[in-house]
């Protein structure tokens, strides 16, 4: 990151923390904004936030590593979270999981090499009456079938104009897991 970019980022964070009242309770909302914008919370951001709030960077790291929607690891532009809890499980989430892996060419917990999609599990999305459900960033999809997985991914690709970069769709279906 360029020095000027870093300064800009620091100034932005300072401003946002001020907006939230300059105390520790600003921490999570600010981290959420960083996460949304950059797809992860970098060590630099943790240091800056810690400086401004007069706490140890480890305290910030503790928070970043605790919450599943905030993280140190770079995530894709679209984070797909498939609900794995009982009601969705009973409504066929396993087949959906397999189809997502096939269509994206990655396993759960991974990000596509082009940095567009991250695939994760979620614990109960509160859509048990309309399962199986998945969350793409903030958007919820219900009663998803293996067939509609493709449409959802396609929708993402066109949404942000990355379609042009994605002409060749990932062809590689994953081999059956060794287990």
């Amino acid at each position, binding site marked *: 990151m360029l020095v000027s970019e870093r300064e800009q980022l620091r100034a932005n964070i300072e401003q946002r923390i001020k907006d939230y009242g300059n105390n520790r309770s600003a921490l999570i909302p600010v981290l959420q904004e960083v996460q949304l914008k950059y797809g992860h919370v970098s060590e630099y951001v943790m240091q800056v936030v810690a400086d401004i709030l007069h706490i140890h960077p480890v305290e910030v790291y503790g928070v970043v590593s605790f919450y599943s929607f905030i993280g140190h690891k770079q995530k894709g532009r679209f984070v797909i979270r498939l609900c*794995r809890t009982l009601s969705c499980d009973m409504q066929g989430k*396993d087949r959906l999981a397999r189809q997502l892996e096939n269509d994206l060419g990655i396993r759960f917990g991974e990000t596509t090499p082009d940095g567009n999609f991250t695939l994760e599990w979620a614990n109960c999305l509160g859509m048990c*009456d309309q399962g199986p459900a998945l969350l793409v960033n903030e958007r919820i999809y219900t009663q998803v079938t293996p067939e509609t997985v493709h449409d959802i991914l396609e929708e993402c690709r066109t949404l942000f104009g990355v379609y042009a970069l994605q002409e060749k769709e990932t062809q590689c279906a994953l081999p059956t897991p060794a287990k």
Partner: protein
Amino acid sequence: MRTTDTSKMTFSKVAPGEGLKKALTMSPEEIIGLITESRLKGRGGAGFPTDLKWTLAAAVNDDLKYVVCNADEGEPGTFKDRVILTEFADLMFDGMTIGARAIGACKGIVYLRGEYTYLRSFLKNKLAERRKDGLLGKNVLGHEGFDFDIEIRMGAGAYICGEETALIESLEGQRGEPRNRPPFPVNTGFMGHPTIVNNVETFTWVPCIVTKGAKWFNDIGTERSTGLKLFSVSGDCGRHGVFEFPMGITIQELLEKVDGTGAKAVQAGGASGRCVPACDFGRTIAFEDVPTGGSIIVIGPDRDMLQVAGNFMEFFLDESCGQCTPCREGNAKLLEGIELLKAGRCSMKYLRELCKLGETMQLASKCGLGQSSPNAFLSIVTKFKDEIMGRTENVTSNA
């Protein structure tokens, strides 16, 4: 399949704002008195008397008090709060405002779970409208000296933050780890100030009780569990969705209403609740019998009970905050036990050890998560012994 019909619910028969207007003509003591008379208990599942919480917070002398609405609905199988927030948000905000009046708070916070981020802008607009209508802000509805405003804070994907002290920790910018109690949030809550944390549904019932009267509410239900309750029904039944039933309904009656008769078991109260086998369907859903925060998952005759138990244990292993040993280590051990059972490699002696471990977790864990996480395991292991013991490896499971 999806049959949530909100038009028949009590919430749609109570006009938003009506309860609030009436409550503002009453003194704080009268409001709490009314809630006491109604015997309203926390709708999140724990069933703590709402009036007691409010009385304790009202008794503390502090200029700054908080009303927190727990919209961190993370219990597997629960989605009633989602429906309330989308259809009856005004009624819920009315409830929070009445709560603020009762305890003398000037600030309200809705802690909305990260998974419901798509509801945030909708709720923000609702709040803006309320400010415009004078239902929030300085001198609410022209009542001199009653200032109250509500802000929305987002959760970040942690089930444990539904526990009230963990929720407060999270609001303060900490890891969502539950606190030791006492002190209780009612005197040392958010930022060290008195705070009441109530469930979305609890707040929504408040304006209904104010409008229709405490007697209307406590005439319904049982002696110790009064009133109506929203149930989130999913699983192997004909009708999924949110239903309003009186407390004290038997599980059999409930199943008949949602076309779920013939079920093998019902998981009441989500992952932290209990699994009720068919022979116990005569039991009632009430705080004194089978308690639930509203989650009802119907388990059909073809399901593998180990699959059910395993799913819940995976959930708890993932969501345990790791702060105290019984919960952090215990959940991992119980899940291992389920894997052994699935493979048919668990001795009776070891299973008994696991049950003892579960009981230890119930006693020794710091918060409700660890205390209730072995519930599903223990109830399934004790009630479905025939099904889970001595499996041969290629036993047919559902799928």
